[in-house]
């Protein structure tokens, strides 16, 4: 067989084609570059060659098909007739599918002419168009209409054949022509029937009542080729030759094939994906196919699975299959699945998606708030007592790792929930992050692994080298890693460096009218051009001078963003919050073309005004199609902006790295103003943070090259950016490995107690305390090594540094002996999420306080008449795990926090709170931003702190209160978390209703309700209820935004 290396001109032509693609994508002219017809042809022939007698192509052969696809797709069919054009599109689609680039086929064929065959007068032409048209739809598979069209076109051919075929034959001039036409028609009828069968299979999983689609296709294609081979060569027989393996590839990628031998629940899920009205899913992406079909993930029996796929390659769908498999395996046993995501935004996003996708299967999905406590509202879902009000048992809980940690430690809740069937960990590369959250997550998994031996694990991650090792950690015997080879990339992307125009020779004050873009080599399969490209079109209204863009990377980024955003939605990643505002304000000055979604933008802009006040800058920006996204925005506002951006209703989003983690955006361009994050001066943005967001640029479903530009206003920055991009994937390393270095600094008589003021060691201490309780004091000393071996870090440490591992073991044993002396406090460690030392310290301080009775009366507590709230906050300010989070402004003390919380719980607006508590001029951020961020932190940490204090101070005594009073007390932390005062308002907030609306709507609720009931009520009563509570315009806007936030 011919090899690619024999054909250097093909490789050259491919490079040229990529160059043209990049140039045209980026707005530069690439049309003058010559197109090598011969190379295109040879590339296609090499694909034919590769196909000979093969059911599936090797990777090299797929590469060949990819080259042919790239070369043929840019071919200009000037003046071609309809059949030729149609067959050409089918040919291109085939090559894309054969190259394993199904999404590319969809993109390339998205704008294909709809094949309506016209008059059947010329029967042969009519049949050709019908048959090629049917195949075009099957290759595109973008909608149910594509599949339906295939069927309809063929039905039409059959219905009209009798009437139009004979007159057509009679019109032919001689016998040779008639015989040729007869043979071509015969082949076309078979080819059309093959399309019909395939369409039927893709939808129903059966073709002509049987599952042997592969044999059926082979039979029809052999008949096609036999007819055409023996007659005159019909037009486009070469396309039919390509279609046969392509049809098999479509069968193989079909969701029906992947779930053929799966359980009935999974098959019903597949059915619902195929038949859903919006975005039906017929085909799997190549990595999904590999995992589900080749490696059997749909019927997985491995206990520990790691899916190591690039960003945007469909990990969530795999998780859905795995979840259903696990739920199915529960049989009649009661059980649940935990889905862990690192951020609140991602928890919401995943919960919405799972809820939507599992609704047809009647599987209940609920998200848990990130608050480190359980209020009555959440308890209704975790331990339902009444089917009517609490709803059916929840099958899947979506939450943050910290919340799952808390849940796992609550034995009574776990007992209620039944068997933990599966733990899904999204963005699992966070296990290797060097912060305290990573060690917490690792130890949580170790605990679950130890205490829930029947539970399975599914870790979803991009960018790790040692996926197998991670899978083995959780189960040595039953594990599997699904890693996508480096060659598969979900989308074409070019990464480069944005540079300013030359300063030399520029007159003073001259406006910058262009920037440069220099593509760079990266550690991933990105496109590359070895030349600097000039991007013209910087809007003079931005007022950016040549000098300014040479001096400021941020201004240079603004110029690059404005030029690139003509290509599509653009994200500018800023270093700090202030930069997002200044960049957005500058960008809003540009002349922007009109954008769809005016009504939605207006609704969100008004919603922002209601939430942040009418003087806020954001609504004005939104009306121009520009927005910001950072930690200083209320959660719902940030989500609404994400929603607008996802719907392509914004030109530009200026964001901080809070955006990076897992949010599913269609980004055409990403401009990064600095590779140094705000925190950690001099450090570089992490590899995973960068590729997590860069991986979303140029989406699977969009036909454009994604552009990532790193701004470098001088040569030194340029070199740094180049080095930054060359970094490659690393092993996931446990935080524990770095932590043990701390042991070296301990004096011989010091133990772990002297380290637990650090958050990461507090997490370790809690792990030990929890296990001590589970194992019992008597056995712990024997078991401690096994317990430690359950963590990934200790396993790694034993491999790399045995003496240090032994030292950790000794210190841990010593520490356990120390804390075992006070098992009462050890028990409180599990309840509070504080270290043993913190619990003891807090108990001591609480015992010195005079009266904390107000803690049992929320009205009194938040009236601030007594000292309870002030004193409790004063105690919490001494707890290392929580202290930093409580200090949201300078000079925080118990009184100030108590005042702030009282105002917050009583529903004071953010605008008013900003004026009252964050009005200081000394800060470099605006007061509203600081206020929102401050209250986000304060509400989370205070809610956690209050919940812990209630447990420490009252514990089981709460059971002695009346049910009504008990409920009020239990809800105190949630009042603080959500900034509301009543149970009804908490329920509304849990159901996703924004704070202001929750306060207003609660007046219309006659009795307390669970979120389960509320969600249905709010949906069924519709907009009217909202308008009645909030006024006509406000009510409509809030309803609109709420539906959008809930993914309805």
């Amino acid at each position: 067989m011919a090899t690619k290396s024999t054909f250097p001109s093909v490789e050259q032509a491919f490079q040229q084609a990529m160059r043209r693609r990049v140039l045209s994508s980026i707005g530069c002219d690439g049309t003058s570059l010559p197109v090598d017809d011969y190379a295109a042809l040879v590339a296609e022939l090499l694909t034919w060659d590769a196909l000979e007698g093969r059911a599936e192509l090797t990777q090299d052969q797929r590469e060949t098909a990819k080259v042919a696809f790239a070369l043929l797709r840019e071919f200009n069919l000037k003046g071609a007739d309809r059949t030729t054009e149609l067959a050409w599109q089918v040919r291109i689609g085939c090559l894309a599918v054969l190259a394993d680039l199904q999404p590319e086929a969809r993109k390339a064929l998205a704008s294909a002419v709809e094949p309506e065959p016209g008059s059947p007068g010329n029967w042969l032409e009519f049949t050709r168009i019908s048959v090629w048209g049917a195949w075009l739809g099957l290759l595109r598979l973008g909608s149910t209409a594509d599949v339906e069209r295939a069927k309809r076109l063929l039905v039409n051919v059959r219905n009209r054949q009798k009437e139009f075929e004979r007159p057509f034959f009679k019109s032919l001039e001689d016998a040779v022509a008639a015989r040729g036409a007869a043979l071509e028609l015969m082949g076309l009828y078979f080819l059309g029937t093959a399309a019909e069968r395939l369409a039927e299979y893709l939808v129903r999983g059966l073709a002509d009542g049987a599952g042997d689609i592969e044999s059926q296709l082979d039979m029809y294609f052999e008949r096609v080729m036999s007819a055409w081979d023996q007659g005159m060569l019909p037009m486009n027989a070469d396309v039919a030759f390509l279609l046969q393996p392509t049809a098999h590839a479509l069968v193989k990628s079909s969701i029906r094939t992947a779930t053929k031998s799966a359980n009935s629940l999974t098959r019903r899920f597949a059915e619902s994906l195929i038949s859903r009205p919006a975005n039906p899913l017929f085909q799997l992406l190549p990595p999904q196919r590999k995992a589900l079909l080749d490696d059997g993930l749909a019927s997985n029996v491995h206990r520990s699975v790691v899916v190591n796929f690039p960003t945007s390659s469909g990990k969530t769908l795999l998780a859905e299959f795995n979840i259903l498999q696990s739920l199915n395996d529960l049989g009649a046993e009661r059980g649940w699945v935990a889905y862990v995501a690192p951020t609140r935004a991602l928890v919401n996003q995943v919960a919405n998606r799972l809820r939507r996708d599992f609704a047809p299967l009647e599987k209940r999905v609920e998200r848990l708030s990130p608050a480190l406590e359980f209020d009555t509202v959440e308890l209704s879902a975790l331990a339902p007592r009444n089917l009517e009000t609490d709803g059916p048992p929840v099958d899947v809980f979506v939450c943050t790792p910290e919340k799952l940690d808390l849940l796992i430690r609550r034995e009574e809740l776990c007992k209620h929930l039944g068997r933990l069937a599966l733990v899904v960990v999204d963005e699992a590369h966070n296990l290797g992050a060097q912060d305290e959250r990573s060690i917490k997550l690792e130890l949580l998994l170790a605990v679950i692994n130890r205490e829930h031996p029947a539970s399975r694990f599914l870790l979803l991650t991009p960018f790790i080298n040692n996926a197998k090792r991670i899978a083995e950690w959780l189960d040595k015997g039953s594990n599997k890693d699904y890693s996508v080879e480096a060659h598969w990339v979900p989308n074409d992307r070019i990464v480069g460096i944005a540079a300013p125009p030359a300063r030399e020779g520029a007159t003073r004050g001259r406006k910058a009218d262009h920037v440069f873009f220099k593509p760079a080599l990266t550690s991933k399969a990105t496109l590359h051009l070895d030349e600097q490209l000039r991007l013209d079109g910087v809007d003079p209204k931005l007022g950016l001078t040549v000098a300014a863009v040479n001096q400021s990377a941020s201004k240079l980024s603004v110029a690059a963003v404005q030029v690139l955003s003509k290509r599509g939605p653009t994200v500018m990643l800023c270093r700090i919050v202030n930069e997002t505002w200044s960049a957005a304000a500058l960008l809003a000055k540009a002349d922007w073309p009109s954008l769809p979604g005016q009504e939605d933008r207006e609704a969100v802009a008004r919603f922002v005004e209601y939430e942040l006040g009418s003087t806020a800058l954001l609504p004005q920006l939104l009306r121009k199609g520009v927005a910001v996204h950072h930690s200083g925005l209320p959660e719902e506002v940030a989500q609404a902006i994400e929603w607008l951006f996802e719907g392509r209703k914004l030109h530009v989003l200026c964001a901080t790295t809070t955006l990076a983690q897992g949010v599913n955006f269609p980004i055409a361009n990403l401009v990064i103003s600095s590779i140094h994050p705000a925190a950690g001066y001099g450090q570089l943005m992490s590899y995973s943070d960068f590729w997590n967001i860069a991986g979303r640029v140029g989406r699977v479903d969009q036909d454009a090259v994604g552009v990532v530009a790193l701004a470098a206003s001088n040569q030194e920055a340029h070199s740094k950016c180049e080095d930054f991009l060359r970094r490659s994937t690393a092993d996931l390393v446990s935080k524990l490995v770095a932590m043990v270095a701390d042991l070296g600094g301990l004096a011989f008589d010091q133990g772990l107690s002297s380290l637990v003021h650090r958050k990461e060691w507090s997490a370790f201490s809690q792990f030990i305390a929890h296990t001590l309780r589970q194992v019992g004091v008597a056995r712990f000393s024997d078991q401690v090594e096994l317990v430690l071996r359950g963590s990934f870090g200790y396993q790694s440490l034993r491999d790399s540094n045995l003496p240090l591992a032994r030292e950790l073991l000794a210190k841990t044993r010593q520490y356990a002996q120390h804390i075992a002396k006070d098992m009462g406090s050890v028990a409180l460690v599990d309840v509070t999420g504080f270290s043993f030392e913190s619990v003891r310290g807090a108990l001591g301080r609480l015992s010195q306080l005079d009266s904390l009775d107000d803690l049992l009366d929320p009205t009194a507590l938040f009236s601030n008449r007594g000292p309870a709230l002030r004193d409790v906050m004063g105690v919490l300010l001494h707890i290392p795990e929580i202290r930093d989070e409580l200090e949201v402004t300078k000079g925080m003390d118990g009184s100030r926090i108590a005042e702030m919380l009282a105002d917050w719980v009583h529903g004071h607006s953010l605008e008013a709170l900003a004026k009252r508590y964050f009005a200081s001029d000394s800060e470099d951020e605006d007061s509203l931003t600081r206020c929102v961020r401050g209250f986000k932190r304060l509400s989370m940490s205070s809610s956690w702190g209050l919940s812990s204090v209630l447990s420490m101070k009252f514990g089981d005594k709460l059971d002695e209160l009346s049910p009504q009073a008990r409920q009020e007390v239990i809800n105190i932390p949630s009042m603080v978390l959500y900034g509301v005062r009543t149970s009804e308002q908490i329920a509304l907030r849990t159901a996703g209703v924004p704070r202001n609306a929750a306060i207003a709507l609660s007046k219309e609720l006659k009795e307390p309700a669970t979120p389960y009931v509320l969600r249905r009520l709010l949906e069924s009563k519709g907009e009217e209820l909202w308008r009645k509570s909030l006024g006509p315009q406000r009510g409509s806007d809030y309803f609109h935004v709420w539906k959008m936030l809930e993914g309805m």
Partner: protein
Amino acid sequence: MVTPFATVNSYKWKHGQVSCEAYSAADPVACEDWLKQDVAKRVYDQPMIDGLKDDMLALKSENFDISNLMEYIDLPTPDALYWDIGESVADLFLIERIGARLPANRRRDLRTPKGSLPGADIAGYVPNGAAETMFLFGEIKTSSDAASPPSVMSGSGSGMAAQLARLTTKIDIRRQLLYYLRARSTKGDLPGLFTSALASLSKNQFALVGVLVRDTEPNLKDVEAAAKHLGGVLSQDQACTLYALHTCIPMSGWSQHCKAA
């Protein structure tokens, strides 16, 4: 049998990258024998369609009407006409003189009925130096027109010059020819020839020939104008050879000698 054409050309002329060569057959007996044997064998090698009958019945079970198809596929093949015979004459000449390999004797299936994309009369392989192979594409014209050049050589659509030029500019025609060759190059040394020719094609190298079969005396004017036209439209590095073959038997008598066995 060897072809009856002289080994020495009657004339040889070159215009830029286009060469013209003429060869005559002088011995009528040898020419007649050749027509009766080698040429007849090639002309009447028709495709078989019997295997299709079962497939056609299968089509009936897919709810298609097969009555018309049956009727038209079964039409008797008409007798060979003079241009069918001229094409076989040209094939055999190219096989003998330039070492052409024509993987199938099925020129007919290179044409499409009333199609918008004409095919080509010649598709095969030819040596490219000692070790390599090139694709061979070409057109054949047969004419007893007394005028020089004969009408088949000119004409903007169907003239030889226009058709040869189209073979170099229309990628879709080449694609069909290559598919045709590939599908028929699966056995013996043919796969190797295909691969080698593909490598030459990737360097823009393939052979282009035109063959004019005549029953007249050699006359440079037969091909001169076509050569000049082609010289102007082909790229400078695309060589082309126009062969003029002159039989000594009048075309009107060809079908008498050349009959199915």
